[in-house]
């Protein structure tokens, strides 16, 4: 169920470092097959990587459960939080994950910036992956050997070589403050209300519409993947675009999950704090028009 961003980097580095990647299955409703995931662990497993929330189906994964199994097997746990951090309270200590990444552009912040959380002890052990200014404590030149000696800075600066994206950092901080002022629990509550309302309306009003994955709002965030019989996802998106409604169409950077669902592509409606029930009503009315095409 992973976004390509949680597949491709591992594939690239596996070719360099020569390790094997095992992929866990998903159930027909798009939820994670936990038993299959847990069966993949062995004494050789170094790291488990899982999205907290699927960007296609909105399914919320029990990363705490997987983290526990990972640690029991001596592995580390990485979580892709791009779709969870903007939508709910995420406590990395409670989840006991070793690493968690998220992006600014999905949480009212700018593009091109995100954050990686890592347990301090692990970050201290890790080598930098980039070189430049700021990430060193000192660079000394030995006149006798004519060689440079380098001492790394402390985390996180050790991993932040060069002049940082200052504007992006300031803007992301303001976005975080804005969301925290609302309260992440309130954000999730509101999104779930919208999702539940939208699913009910879609199921009752649209006859040619197919909802992909689970429709149980208790299992997911505010994402509804769907299709309309006889129309491609792009036609649906272009039609809605005429009415000022923006959805995403295509693979959503998660082609393997579409293969599981046996779909050419999907349309995806997603909600956030700025959306309203009235907008959902409008969305449903336009979909009813589309069904008449």
């Amino acid at each position: 169920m992973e976004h390509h961003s949680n597949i491709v980097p591992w594939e690239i580095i596996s070719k360099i470092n020569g390790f094997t990647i095992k992929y866990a299955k998903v159930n027909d409703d798009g939820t994670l097959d936990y038993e299959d995931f847990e069966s993949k662990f062995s004494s050789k497993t170094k790291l488990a990587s899982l999205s907290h929330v699927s960007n296609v189906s909105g399914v919320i994964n029990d990363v705490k459960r997987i983290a526990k199994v990972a640690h029991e097997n001596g592995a580390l746990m990485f979580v892709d939080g791009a779709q969870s951090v903007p939508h709910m309270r995420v406590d990395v200590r409670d989840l006991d994950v070793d690493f968690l990444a998220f992006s600014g552009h999905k949480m009212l912040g700018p593009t091109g910036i995100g954050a990686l959380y890592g347990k301090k002890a692990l970050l201290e052990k890790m080598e930098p992956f980039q070189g430049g200014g700021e990430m060193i404590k000192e660079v000394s030149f030995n006149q006798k050997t004519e060689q440079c000696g380098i001492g790394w800075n402390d985390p996180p600066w050790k991993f932040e070589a060069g002049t940082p994206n200052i504007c992006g950092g300031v803007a992301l901080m303001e976005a975080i403050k804005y969301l925290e002022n609302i309260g992440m629990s309130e954000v999730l509550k509101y999104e779930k209300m919208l999702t539940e309302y939208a699913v009910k309306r879609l199921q009752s009003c649209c006859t040619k519409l197919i909802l992909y994955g689970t429709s149980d709002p208790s299992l997911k965030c505010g994402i509804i993947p769907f299709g309309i019989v006889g129309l491609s996802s792009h036609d649906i998106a272009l039609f809605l675009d005429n009415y000022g409604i923006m959805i995403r169409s295509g693979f959503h950077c998660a082609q393997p999950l579409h293969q599981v669902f046996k779909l050419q592509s999907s349309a995806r409606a997603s909600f956030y704090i700025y959306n309203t029930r009235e907008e959902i009503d409008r969305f449903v009315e336009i979909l009813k028009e589309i069904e008449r095409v």
Partner: protein
Amino acid sequence: MSTVEDYVARIEGTCGAEKDLIVIFKYDKKDEAIARILKKAQLKNSLAGIIFELAFHDVSFRVYKSGKAIFRGIKNREQLNEILVGLLL
């Protein structure tokens, strides 16, 4: 002398297995582009003047009043360009 670029802002491949091509017309030229297309292509269906389902030289496509068109079953961008020349010029 007019060119396709006078009407077309950009062409995008769709994300998905379908591999369709979406043509986005320039905002200030979209109405003229749609009018030209409607003159030359065969209208198969339309919905409230918002969507036009059309055919041109055995290629089926839809044009949206918002100024976008989606073309299916196109081999490559060169073929699409030839079709656009036929439709727009």
